[in-house]
């Protein structure tokens, strides 16, 4: 089972995980990753916006989930990614992988996050007291992707 979607509005990751888990009784393990907008003392970031390009973004996420399912033995995959404007504490992304064996679930979730964070079709900007500013791609992203190069 593969559930992949973009969320234009805030979502409740725990409710999503509950629903995902309820039908997965054949799974020995479920690994999840929840990414949220950081909220730190003195952090100047007031808001975050994620833009996407509909013809590519969701199809790309779906294809990524399919790649994970091809590479690891998964029973089910969940990917939910916010778009639009978020404030600190808001969920940005939720990934969950259910598998009979936990190693498969861990690796697939890790793989999905590395790719979502670096190669998915999203453009991000942050709002501080000085206004909105686009975020440049990070060098770390290439290192993250290189971990998964098929040998």
């Amino acid at each position, binding site marked *: 089972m593969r559930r992949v979607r973009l969320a234009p509005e805030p979502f409740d990751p725990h409710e999503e995980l509950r629903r995902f888990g309820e039908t997965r009784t054949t799974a020995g393990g479920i690994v999840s990753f929840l990414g949220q907008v950081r909220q730190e003392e003195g952090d100047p970031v007031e808001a975050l916006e994620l833009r996407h390009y509909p013809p*590519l973004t969701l199809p790309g996420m779906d294809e990524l989930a399919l790649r994970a399912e091809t590479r690891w033995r998964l029973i089910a995959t969940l990917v939910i990614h916010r778009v639009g404007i978020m404030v600190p504490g808001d969920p*940005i992304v939720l990934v969950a992988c259910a598998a009979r064996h936990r190693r498969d679930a861990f690796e697939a979730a890790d793989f999905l996050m590395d790719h*979502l964070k670096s*190669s998915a079709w*999203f453009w991000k900007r942050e709002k501080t007291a000085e206004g909105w500013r*686009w975020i440049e*791609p*990070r060098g770390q992203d290439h290192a993250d992707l290189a971990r998964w190069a098929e040998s």
Partner: protein
Amino acid sequence: MTLTLLFLGPLEDVAGVPEMSLDVAGAATLPDIAERLDPALAVAITAPRVRIALNGQLVAPADVRAGNGDELAFLPPVSGG
């Protein structure tokens, strides 16, 4: 005969708008389009790392032929989710 241009991410700031309509006579190439734009924007959209989608499908810059009713999206490097 109208072509729609979309500017994603930081390209929107260069263009000043997220979307722009361009009257074209026929099937325009990327250089045809670039020369109709503000020079700074023309440089930005033809940068090597900018990908291009024609009606939602990625195309090589040299293969761009866009005419009436087409949508051409300019996709700068993604920042990730």
